[in-house]
């Protein structure tokens, strides 16, 4: 299901790419055209709606694009509305559209008729109570006692698809759920899972979406693919789809980040969609600030950040935008002026990005932390004025910021008020400490290894 739609969406995306050439930073680094081929029509719709709000592109063109985008779907009522928006209130709705609506309704009714028995059965508590955990058994049970056929179950999938295509996502989600309970066809179940994920995303049910993402991920990892390319493609889709929960659902963040940083997925990002690095970078940097999870979480974040720097460096020649360039400037070149400049640009980019709009402020805040952290590590004596400037703050604000920084991150530093400087104290790391540091995890790791070997 999703593959076809992604392909069609590709064509729509191409239109957008054509007009996407512009000098403006936000436009220059607009990722929408790149992301679109990997999303579903209904998901893209939201991106386009967002773009209309942003007013980066001419509204009429976007409207037309939206119309083109949704044309193959069965959301005919909305399409008519769009038509009117494009061509004026009084415009005659084209005949094809009306015909299509009729046809869609017919089809829908037909599908409803086809599936009425099975949906009825599934609502029947007597039937439900007879279900076991074994799919095959359930199916057999239904076949034996209620005359359900395989065709009927397949019709359920089409029914769910139809519901989705009409834009009624919540029912579609339920239907696909029941299909999945019954069907034993691996491919179709997989399709249903993708469909359900789309529904969950569109109904803003993030917990549900996370569940589906996990399912799909397992499926991709375990299924034997004919060609590695198709596996790669599926991963790429999953990565794009996961962006929705990543930036909209706090609780999902760690899970998804962990998934992104697993070797398979980081490779996928590097080979087929390096632009995801922007989101990855934004997510890692913003989550640095919410340092609430204790030392374990901090360690994970530290690790992820290092990994991020590594990947950004590797991919710099293939993909760069202000956000990745910021990281490169700060952690590869140690060029603070450049980093500051990039941060300014990044702000504009973030604010025009569908996914990142919400976390723009958090990103700027965390990025400042990063800058000052790096700055303090390298310097012994810092001019407060200069630092404030680096952070895009006034001198007073800067001072406050530094005080907060010293308090929060336990940086060993003092402010010399008279000279307007901060004096850092870098105690050299003791050799003993280094040795302890190095050997600390050894015992645990050996234990884990031992356990793994004996198992």
């Amino acid at each position, binding site marked *: 299901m999703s593959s076809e739609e992604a392909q069609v969406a590709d064509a729509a995306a191409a239109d957008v790419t054509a007009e996407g050439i512009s000098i403006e930073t936000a436009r220059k680094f607009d990722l929408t055209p790149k992301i679109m081929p990997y999303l579903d029509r209904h998901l893209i719709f939201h991106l386009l709606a967002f773009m209309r709000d942003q007013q980066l592109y001419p509204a009429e063109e976007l409207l037309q694009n939206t119309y083109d985008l949704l044309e193959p779907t069965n959301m005919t009522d909305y399409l008519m509305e769009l038509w009117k928006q494009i061509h004026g209130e009084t415009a005659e709705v084209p005949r094809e559209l009306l015909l299509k609506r009729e046809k869609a309704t017919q089809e829908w009714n037909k599908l409803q008729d086809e599936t009425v028995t099975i949906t009825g059965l599934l609502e029947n508590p007597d039937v439900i109570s007879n279900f076991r955990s074994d799919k095959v058994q359930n199916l057999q049970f239904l076949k034996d006692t209620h005359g359900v056929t395989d065709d009927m179950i397949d019709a359920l999938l089409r029914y769910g698809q139809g519901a989705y295509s009409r834009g009624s996502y919540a029912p579609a989600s339920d239907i696909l759920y029941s299909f999945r309970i019954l069907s034993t066809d691996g491919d179709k179940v997989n399709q249903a899972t993708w469909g359900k994920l789309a529904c969950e995303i569109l109904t803003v049910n993030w917990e549900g979406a996370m569940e589906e993402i996990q399912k799909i991920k397992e499926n991709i990892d375990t299924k034997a693919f004919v060609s590695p390319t198709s596996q790669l493609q599926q991963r790429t889709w999953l990565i794009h789809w996961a962006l929705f929960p990543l930036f909209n659902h706090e609780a999902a963040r760690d899970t998804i980040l962990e998934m992104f940083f697993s070797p398979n997925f980081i490779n996928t990002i590097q080979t087929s969609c390096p632009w995801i690095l922007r989101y990855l970078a934004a997510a890692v940097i913003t989550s640095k600030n919410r340092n609430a999870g204790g030392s374990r979480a901090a360690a994970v974040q530290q*690790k992820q950040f290092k*990994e991020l720097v590594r990947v950004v460096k590797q991919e710099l*020649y293939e993909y760069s935008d202000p956000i990745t360039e910021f990281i490169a400037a700060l952690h590869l070149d140690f060029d603070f002026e450049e980093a500051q400049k990039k941060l300014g640009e990044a702000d504009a980019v973030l604010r025009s990005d569908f996914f990142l709009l919400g976390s723009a402020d958090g990103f700027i805040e965390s990025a400042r932390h990063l800058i000052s952290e790096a700055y303090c590590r390298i310097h012994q*004596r810092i001019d407060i004025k200069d630092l404030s400037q680096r952070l895009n703050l006034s001198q007073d604000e800067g001072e406050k910021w530094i005080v907060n920084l010293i308090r929060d991150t336990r940086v060993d530093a003092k402010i010399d008020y008279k000279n307007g*400087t901060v004096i850092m104290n870098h105690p050299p790391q003791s050799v003993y400490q280094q040795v302890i540091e*190095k*050997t600390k995890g050894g015992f645990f*790791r050996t234990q884990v290894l031992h356990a793994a070997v004996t198992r």
Partner: protein
Amino acid sequence: MATSRFFHGGLSDSESSSSSEDYSTEEEELEEDAQAVDESDESESSEESDDDNDDDDTDDDSKLEANNAGERQSRRNIFTRDAADEDDSDEDGLRRVVKNKKDKRFEEIEACIRLIENAQKINDWFVISQEFDKLNKLVTKVGHGDVVPKPYVKAIADLEDFMNETLSKEKTASKKMNATNAKALNSIKQRLKRNNRQYEQEIAQYRSDKENYLLEPDVEEAPVVQKSIPDGPETLDADDDSGAYSVVTRGGKAVQLTTESIFKHLKVIVEARGKKNTDRTEQIRTMEKLLELAQTPYQKIRVLIALISTRYDLSFGVLSYMATDQWKAAEKELNALLRVLEDNPSWVIVENGDEWEDDEKTPPTPGPGEVFKVSGSIVSFVDRLDDELTKSLQNIDPHTTEYIDRLGDEAALYRTIVRSQVYFERLAKAEKAGNIGDSLNRTIMRRVEHLYYKPLAVIETMEGGSYNLLTSESSSEALRSGLQQQVPANIVQNLCSYLYKNDSTILRTRAMLCHIYHLALRENFYQSRDMLLMSHLQENIHNADITTQILYNRTLVQVGLCAFRNGLISDAQSCLQEILGSGRVKEHLAQGVGPQSRYSTISPEQERLEKQRQLPFHMHINLELLEAAYLTCSMLLEIPAMAAAGSSPDMRKKVISKTFRRMLEFHERNVFPGPPENTRDHVFQAANALAAGDWRKSSDLIQAIKIWDLLPNSDPLKLMLAGKIQEEGLRTYIFTYAPFYDALSLTRLSEMFDLLERKVAAVVSKMIAHDEIAAALDQINKTITFRKGVEVSRLQTLALALSEKASGLIELNERVYEQKSQSGTVGGLQESSTRTGGGGRGGKPRTEFAGNAGGGRGRGGGRGRGGRNAPFPGGERASART
């Protein structure tokens, strides 16, 4: 190829006339063998006894009614006398001896196979493995890859089946095989798979029709094999056709050369092929006349095929090459042949073409839409033409005009290759033409190999030239429709992607390497590097044949040079390290024979092989340039590293380039260094200057290296190098003098090294951030403040080293476990290993390549060895591994 037919050939003699092409290869080999085996004359008596053997074997041949020895003797005498009359009698004798050698080999093969079969019965894989090696060696001696003896095919096919069976049994059965056996089984599994891939066709043939395929060898075993070789001459003297034979050879003036008798003459000539005492130039002259007479396409095709093969026969042996005029004539005739084929689409030449048994009858005339297949092989003509050109280029002194003239012929050759590609493409499209096998792929590969190392402008000229010439020369529809002019920038890419899609053999690997080379040549470093890494060639290149390994080395070096041109010093260094660090650059790149090692003694045979592999001069990568690039890169990395290490002995061990260090030490030992003379002197004096903090002098010395001018745009390169030297000079200075200062002024440093203050700050910041120096910046005073008291005692260093080793050990254990469990299911393990992998070590920039170079570096020596000693480096390596 046409193996099977060759062996059938022994049964029906009339067919031999049309299978000229097949003979060309076999006879050639025979002659090669003859030379290699035995230059000295064999005595008559031994000859006689050999003869006896042969005749016994060929008893059932109806043509030889030799029942008693006496009769044979007389016949024999007549024959020898005849031969003596004509020419040197010894030559004929030689042939007999050869036959005998060949027989012996076949017997050996049989014996081997029998041993393998016996071993199979008792499941002794160790013996099988040994015999299999031996068998392979024997077969290459006999067949030179083209001819595969049937019993061999049967043996390897059966062996594979048996192996698979054993393997599947092994899985189910509980452990019962001992270690040696299991090891041997494993190794043979790998080798057999690789080996059998070469003979896929034959094996498929065998499998599809086991009974019939085996029938002949079963009934008469050895005789079939042996008989097939002497077949040519024997049919001749039994055929009572010797009258015509002598007329043509001796008289020179062919009496009745008419259109009708073309086939008759042709037959005679073909049958005389391979005999030493035939006058080939005479034959060629006859055939040229016949060609003029030929009218129908069929006649033309037949004459041309025979004529081209005969021309190839003129030169034999490994070291001699075809005379230029002959080569040109062959090229012209091949073109004429292709043209005939283009003009007459109903005639095709394929390797498994139909035989036209009886030349007396009227030649076939295909109706419209029908296709008549003539037996022959265009692709081997093209291959041979190409090889001959290469051979002659190898042998001609590259500094003469002759070489340049000869090089000009490449354009003509390229044109022929393109033309035959079009021909094969046409055949591939038309289903009726039958299977053309890998001919198209081979042709395309030849084309790629003529292009990949050339700069864009040259490709453009070659491509455009061939296009124009071909379109103007022939107006044939078949040619025009198949030929399309390609954009020179994309041509290599297009050809290679065709091979990626349609080939799975070594050609694909070679295409990939050529493609990478081409990309690197055109400054696409990242693209070429990514392709190189993604192809995972490093892991299995040492299993490939030597020429492919050479190509791999060339590619690696070219990628390194590309990185160097783009200012990616550490990437360049790690790429070049593998080849240049070995000290046997010349051999690894096949650009001449390196100095002989004291310990290795090479036989003349090996030396000959090595000479054969040499690349023609115009394909060489300039070694001096390579060395200059490598040493400069090493200098830029090594000098700061040495300064950072200071005098502590542990740090000194971390060597980036051993070669560089060794040479530097040697250079330092000179008491009175004179002014620099060669590239090496320049680099090392520059290195010394850099170490002393004198970046200006260092930069001047590097810039003075003349070889940079060979690079397309050397000025930006020099600027880049100067910039790098400034930076590294700064780093070296800080490393060296940090212990003597409390603080250093950034402004002063920026003056000293002529760098922007911001740049200096960035360099220093990086050093601080990577913990290379214990210091901090003071923003107010614009200074670097060094921290004191960071020096560690001996005990502390050791403690650190110990802890490092311990954690390394754990990591190693984890990796071993991960490999065992394949997927690495334990989350905790995976996590910790990646953590250490990405751990903040100082020398980060090298990680990308170093990870991959690791495997390769170990191989360096192995390859050198393979290149010299072993005819089967792959097999040897594999066995050494298991």
